[in-house]
């Protein structure tokens, strides 16, 4: 006779959890198994490299010795980029601080998580896309502005062909950045969205 789940409750109720060793204090516990925690952890790691990048960008003109005429343009753009970064970093910071919603019903909790993660991914994407033009302009200033290259003076005599080449180069960089960003987000964050989507599909209402 096959085990009947209906008659299984005796065995089920006999489990008191003797094998579980409980912590003596909450401080002994460590968390890391929830999608949001993983995402927060990943984003925090990326945040440090982003901050390092921002600091380095601020001292590049001095380090690389670019033409003085370009300082104003460079730092005006740098200030603008700081504003953009500040806005996004504040948004991410509030994401880290958010209260969890584990007391909702499973479906509500999963929807909260799902849209929260989707929103953060989209925000992350727009952040990366916004930084792309900045990095192109900064690179251009740093390359053309190097005192020893004298390329900056040559810019006055730039031909249409050179312009076209620059345009193609910039467009290619933007496409590559977009592709890499999408791959990165899909690889590191998309799996969490898919996991939650699968569970939500399981909970879908059926006509009864």
């Amino acid at each position, binding site marked *: 006779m096959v085990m009947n789940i209906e008659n299984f409750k005796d*065995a089920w109720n006999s489990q008191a959890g003797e*094998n579980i060793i409980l912590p003596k204090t909450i401080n002994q*516990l460590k968390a890391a198994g929830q999608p949001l925690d993983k995402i927060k952890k990943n984003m925090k790691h990326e945040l440090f490299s982003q901050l390092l990048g921002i600091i380095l960008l601020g001292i590049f003109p001095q380090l690389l010795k670019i033409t003085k005429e370009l300082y104003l343009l460079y730092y005006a753009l740098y200030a603008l980029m700081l504003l953009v970064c500040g806005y996004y970093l504040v948004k991410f910071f509030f994401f880290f601080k958010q209260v969890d919603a584990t007391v909702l019903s499973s479906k509500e909790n999963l929807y909260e998580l799902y849209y929260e993660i989707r929103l953060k991914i989209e925000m992350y994407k727009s952040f990366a896309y916004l930084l792309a033009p900045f990095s192109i302009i900064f690179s251009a200033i740093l390359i053309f502005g190097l005192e020893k290259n004298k390329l900056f003076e040559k810019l006055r005599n730039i031909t249409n062909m050179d312009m076209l080449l620059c345009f193609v180069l910039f467009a290619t960089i933007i496409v590559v950045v977009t592709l890499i960003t999408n791959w990165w987000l899909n690889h590191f964050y998309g799996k969490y969205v898919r996991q*939650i989507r699968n569970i939500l599909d399981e909970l879908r209402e059926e006509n009864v």
Partner: protein
Amino acid sequence: MDFVKTQENEFLSLIAQHKGILYKICKMYTNDPEDRNDLSQEIILQLWKSYGTFKAQSTFATWMYRVSLNVALTFLKRSSRKIDDGILFPETDLADIASGSHKEDQLEYFYKAVQELLPVEKALIFLFLEGETHHSIGQHLGISEGNARVKLNRTKEKLQLIIKKNGYEY
């Protein structure tokens, strides 16, 4: 400070009284001892974070079901980073299950079979075995009572088929 410490002690003593719930959920959702340990820590931590939302209108056990299942449903196993559809657990050879008492055997075969269920199906079976009504199961999961009944019946059939396939008889 003292208030927090008192609250923490009160919380941990409630967890100790209900550790059976923790044990069962962890065993249903993970098959690896390390994962099980991670999940139990994660659940206790989330319970503690949400402890302020616990209202005496519901029993501690009912509140614990809700939070624990929500954590278990989205828990990411350390041993298997592949979390896309079709979660694979390390196989336990049924021949290795020591022939203990009748109840122990039943439990071993049950937990082995449960690993083949989907996350929501595990929650349905757990709540059913804990004696929750269809209405209450629906409330926990956020689905209607009718859907809870249909999904539960289907899951029970699926589970029995798995147990049968695994060759358990008594």
